């Protein structure tokens, strides 16, 4: 093979998702994209840019401004054997679609004992840090993790985004695919043009370490890396990017915590009843005799996500994470 074939293009998260959508639409004619402004305008974040021109208005559809309508009709499309990939413009607007997703999407398979299924992938930009308007910066992943029947995925890198999106579209069940908007264009990495998937429900060890485990997902992965840079040289942190909120890859977490004996969980969503609480409980169940410190959570406060002047005070940024790690280590 000539050398140039090994040179992979570097893509942003936006470009990686765009490529995955494009390739899957070519591969599988059942795939349709629907949502507000996803067609002619290519989506407000330009994630679907060019797809309308290439695949046509019947497969890349500008819908009316109605999230319940988008989710509900996507469920119908899926029941009928299509592979809909609806977009909800921002996580804050999942609200009107909640009933459709939770009371229909998540329940259909088991209500019908497998006779009627909903292979649906809902793409949703998520999280804060981009100075967006109110209701445009939330992190509702725990709400949907707590809603049975739905898988919840949140990649933090372009490579994982493409692989997880392809896996989600091919998954026989509803998947809520959260895209951290703070990472959309923050960096590029090599993404193979080939078809590949990243298995849903598998966490990734971002960096190996022996002293303490840090578990996070989405944009805070990079805040954790920043925090780790500030720690003394001799502190060795094992950073785990969960990648999938549900089903949780408890094995990867437990294996790590059994080794380190300490764990800090970091998420943007409010502390109380956040995913950190669930993970902390799983660690307590699996690693009780290995723990050398209480599991520490560094999260958003139990307030609404403030409008952007205060959003950086709300978000778990590197200094707060660093403190959390140091305290857990000192215990």
């Amino acid at each position, binding site marked *: 093979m000539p050398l140039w074939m090994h040179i992979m293009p570097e893509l942003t998260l936006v470009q990686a998702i765009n490529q995955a959508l494009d390739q899957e639409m070519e591969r599988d004619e059942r795939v349709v994209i629907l949502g507000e*402004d996803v067609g002619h305008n290519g989506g407000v974040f330009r994630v679907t840019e060019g797809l309308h021109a290439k695949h046509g208005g019947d497969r890349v559809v500008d819908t009316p401004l109605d999230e319940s*309508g988008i989710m509900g009709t996507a469920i119908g499309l899926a029941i009928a054997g299509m592979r809909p990939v609806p977009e909800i413009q921002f996580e804050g607007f999942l609200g009107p679609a909640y009933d459709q997703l939770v009371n229909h999407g998540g329940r259909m398979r088991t209500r019908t004992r497998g006779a009627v299924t909903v292979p649906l992938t809902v793409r949703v930009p998520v999280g804060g840090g981009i100075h967006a308007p109110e209701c445009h910066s939330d992190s509702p992943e725990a709400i949907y993790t707590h809603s049975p029947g739905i898988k919840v995925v949140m990649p933090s890198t372009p490579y994982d985004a493409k692989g997880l999106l392809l896996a989600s579209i091919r998954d026989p069940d509803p998947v809520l695919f959260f895209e951290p908007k703070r990472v959309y264009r923050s960096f590029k990495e090599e993404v193979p043009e080939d078809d590949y998937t990243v298995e849903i429900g598998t966490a990734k060890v971002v960096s190996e370490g022996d002293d303490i485990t840090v578990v996070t997902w989405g944009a805070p992965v990079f805040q954790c890396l920043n925090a780790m840079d500030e720690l003394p040289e001799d502190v060795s942190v094992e950073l785990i990017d969960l990648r999938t909120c549900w089903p949780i890859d408890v094995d990867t977490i437990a294996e790590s915590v059994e080794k380190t004996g300490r764990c800090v969980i970091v998420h943007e969503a409010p502390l109380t009843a956040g995913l950190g609480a669930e993970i902390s409980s799983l660690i307590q169940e699996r690693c009780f005799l290995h723990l050398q410190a209480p599991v*520490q959570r*560094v999260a958003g406060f139990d*307030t609404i996500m*403030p409008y952007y002047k205060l*959003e950086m005070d709300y978000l778990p940024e590197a200094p707060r994470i660093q403190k959390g790690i*140091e*305290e857990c280590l000192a*215990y």
Partner: protein
Amino acid sequence: MPIRTVYEAKIEHMQILDEDGNLDKKLAKGTLTDNQVIHLYEQMRICRELDEVAFKLQRSGRMGTYPQNKGQEANAVGSALAMKKGTDWIVPAYRENAALFMHGLPMHYVLVYWMGDERGSKMPDGVNITPLSVPIGTHMLHATGIAWAHKIRKDKDAAVITYFGDGATSEGDFHGAMNFAATQQVPLVFYCQNNQWAISVPRERQMKSETVAQKALAYGIPTMQVDGNDIFAVYKATKEARARAVKGGGPTFIEGVTYRLGDHTTADDARRYRDPKEVEAWVAKDPLIRTRLYLESVGKWDDKKQKTLEEQAKKITAEVVRTAEEIEAPHASDMFDSMYAELPPQLIKQRETMRTSSIGQNPEQAGLKASPERV
């Protein structure tokens, strides 16, 4: 059984002041006095200036995403004048700033808000305006509820107006609001600013009904279309709607046919999806142009007055920007303070420590001796 017609309908469109400044005197009778027209013209011009200033603030990094009102001001000022300031509630979307100002909202509040600060929604006492609705098409239910309260309490001479866009009428909550308002016969004016676009989606692809106004027919709500760039038509329709409301005649629907002359927001670039020729055609229908033409035709306006107004608009908006930017920065603790009437202990702790972590918040509780050296 023969087939018979059980329902027939028509939608009327009212225009009183055309785009060349010609007034239909018969229809205009009893509507706006020339002094009121001058007042509304000034309000529109000042609001337009604020829009330009806000745009520049965003572009120079002094403000976040902002949605311009440009081209739609007649809807705001005409309807706001027809409602009763201090008594009536306004339940707005975000393209009727001039209406909010006319009902007592200090202008700098709008800038404070879009500068990323909730204090821009902290309405002064006596200003009956709800904060703008970020989730599109959901707030009209609140307007219905507020109007319902007026009805239950038998409030005299009180009504509500709610504003929303053409796109908003696709949301389920819009239909719920219409149905509740009609079945409860509440004193409410539904004012749809049909500016032809919902971000990149034009009205023809947003809905298949030829008018937005006809949607109200299905709920048994009296409805009409007005030229939304014509302050006379907007005022007259809203005035009549309010009169019906306070007499116990229930809600009215008004579709103001207008146009979003700017981008959706400063985060949008409408050139990607909109034909510039379409925009040009609407520039000619600008409410400011025709109102000025009318005032000139009746000898109430001239270049000198125009110049004075423009200078005044610049002065006012410069002052508004200064006031907005001089407000002291919010404190991180502000995000906690208004969460509940009484803060739960967890929030008090989080506010005190600015921490969520168990060890960091309370070392003793976590079994750790509280010694600062340890952390």
